[in-house]
């Protein structure tokens, strides 16, 4: 099958895969549809076996890297890292909600950058919720800050977001250079979010909290291993080895003592690895390759501007943000990457700003996800959803513009 019918079938398969991944009926893993859908692509000859194998091969190092980082974050949690972070931000706030918000911004930005956005969403956000509740302050600004930082704070390093990992190779940059160029956009994005949220939540950042008195045991070992892993990312990158090995090393050093002291079981390590999700990424890669090959790539190539002028970078970032909200950021980066590849690091990094910051428009990652959930779970749109959308409508355009401008400057200064 080829041409328009193939494009249509590929799009249907993509929609089915994403719809299933968003809804996960009965908690079934998202690979349940993604892998058979990829098999259909092959069976109908929409992608040759060689093309599919090439796609899977190019994704493999990325998926391995992701797996190692997911396990690393989970192990850091078992070593008490996130519990300690909660205690520190509570003590550091001295009861002031604004100071607490600043600390949440800083820590969530760092956690996202080093341990990926998953760690912020899954491990840090619940800790923040509990911490603010125990301080007896209003938790809304701080929780929303976490969800926004998980996206906007994920610009710094290749490891911060799966989207970055997917685009890392295409950018042609080393780990260190990626970080050097993205440092300014990362800080500018966080600052832009701060300015908006500080004003947006004025009426919730009120009063004084009660700081619980407790001694916080510093998880020195976990912190040291994570610091060394971070150094490892740069060293392996300079030495021409995949930084995934540094993440793997960190996971092993944290994992062996944790297993020995029964802080985590082998089964739980397996769960943290999230093998079905990794299979989903491979399946998704194959489906998106088919969608791209049968017409969407050339159609998108016509509307994506070339070069790395400020205007071109802004256009790419906004387009990427829109696509991310239509199909979620993972497929968005897979779809758009082939178009900007080979045009230098600028357009690739602008694309990442778009797909990373864009999902802040809706708290569930994309407007499409939000609609799916609302429609299929028969929820009305409640006021808190409207408030979150209003917040996103303010922060996303501002953050996108500011971060892309920062990227444009950074490209000229660093390069």
């Amino acid at each position, binding site marked *: 099958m080829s041409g328009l019918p193939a494009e249509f079938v590929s799009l249907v398969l993509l929609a089915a895969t994403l719809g299933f*991944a968003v809804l996960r009926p009965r908690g079934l893993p998202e690979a349940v549809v993604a892998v058979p859908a990829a098999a259909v692509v092959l069976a109908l000859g929409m992608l040759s076996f060689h093309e599919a194998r090439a796609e899977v091969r190019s994704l493999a190092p990325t998926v391995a890297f992701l797996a190692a980082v997911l396990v690393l974050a989970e192990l850091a949690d078992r070593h008490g890292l996130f519990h300690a972070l909660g205690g520190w931000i509570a003590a550091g706030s001295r009861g002031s909600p604004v100071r607490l918000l600043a600390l949440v911004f800083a820590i969530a930005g760092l956690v996202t950058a080093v341990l990926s956005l998953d760690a912020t969403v899954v491990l840090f956000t619940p800790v923040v919720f509990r911490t603010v509740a125990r301080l007896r302050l209003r938790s809304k600004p701080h*929780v929303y800050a976490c969800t926004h930082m998980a996206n906007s704070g994920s610009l710094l390093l290749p490891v911060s977001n799966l989207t970055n990992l997917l685009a890392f190779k295409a950018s042609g940059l080393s780990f260190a250079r990626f970080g050097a160029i993205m440092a300014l956009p990362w800080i500018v994005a966080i600052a832009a979010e701060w300015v908006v949220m500080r004003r947006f939540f*004025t009426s919730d950042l009120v*009063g*004084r909290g009660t700081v619980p008195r407790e001694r916080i045991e510093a998880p020195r070992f976990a912190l040291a291993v994570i610091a060394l892993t971070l150094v490892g990312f740069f060293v392996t990158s300079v030495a021409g080895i995949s930084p995934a090995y540094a993440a793997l090393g960190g996971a092993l050093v944290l994992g062996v003592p944790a297993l020995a002291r029964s802080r985590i079981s082998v089964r739980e390590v397996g*769960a943290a690895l999230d093998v079905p999700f990794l299979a989903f990424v491979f399946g998704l890669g194959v489906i998106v390759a088919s969608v791209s090959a049968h017409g969407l790539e050339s159609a998108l190539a016509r509307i994506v501007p070339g070069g790395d002028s400020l205007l071109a970078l802004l256009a790419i970032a906004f387009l990427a943000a829109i696509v991310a909200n239509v199909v979620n950021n993972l497929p968005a980066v897979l779809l758009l990457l082939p178009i900007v590849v080979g045009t230098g690091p600028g357009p690739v990094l602008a694309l990442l700003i778009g797909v990373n910051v864009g999902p802040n428009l809706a708290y*569930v990652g*994309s407007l499409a996800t939000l609609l799916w959930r609302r429609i299929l779970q028969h929820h009305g749109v409640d006021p*808190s959803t409207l408030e979150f959308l209003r917040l996103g409508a303010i922060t996303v355009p501002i953050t996108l513009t500011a971060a892309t401008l920062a990227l444009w400057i950074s490209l000229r200064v660093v390069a």
Partner: protein
Amino acid sequence: MAHMRAVIWIVEGTWQGCIDVALGILPGDAEVVLLHAGSADAQQAAEAASAGLLGRHRPGRGGPGLVQVSDEEAEGLLTAAEQRLGRGELRRVRVGGRVERAVVEALADGVDVLVCARDGDRSRLGPHSLGPATRFVVDHAPCTVVLVWPDETPDVGSIPPPPHHERPHHHGPPHSPPRHT
């Protein structure tokens, strides 16, 4: 004569000020209700955010759920408020749903006074010293409302000057001629 019935709206961060003012103004024999309105916004956002990870989340993690945490802390908050008030004749009421509506509904039968805190711009006096929920409550309350400044009350000099555009320009002499000093 019937006792005065008062509701103190206990909100995270500002409740202490309300209790202190209530101690000063409410008669000793007033029937007092400590009202807490819980909102699930933050908890929903915290839990729904993982949907953005496209299934990369592991449900059923250890530790108490967020609902339980907010529940315990709301109870703890009311206990702390009770202790600060230190009076016998007290009732606790916890409501949920849309905060502003739930609070107004709790004032429905025969409440004489509501004590609540300002939560808007606290850097100066007005014009936005009430957050959206509090403004709704103040606007709709079927009783007397006592509004408390939670932190330090700003100086009267902090009121913004009257806006420029209200002055008529170029149409004859102004109502009050500008003073040249």
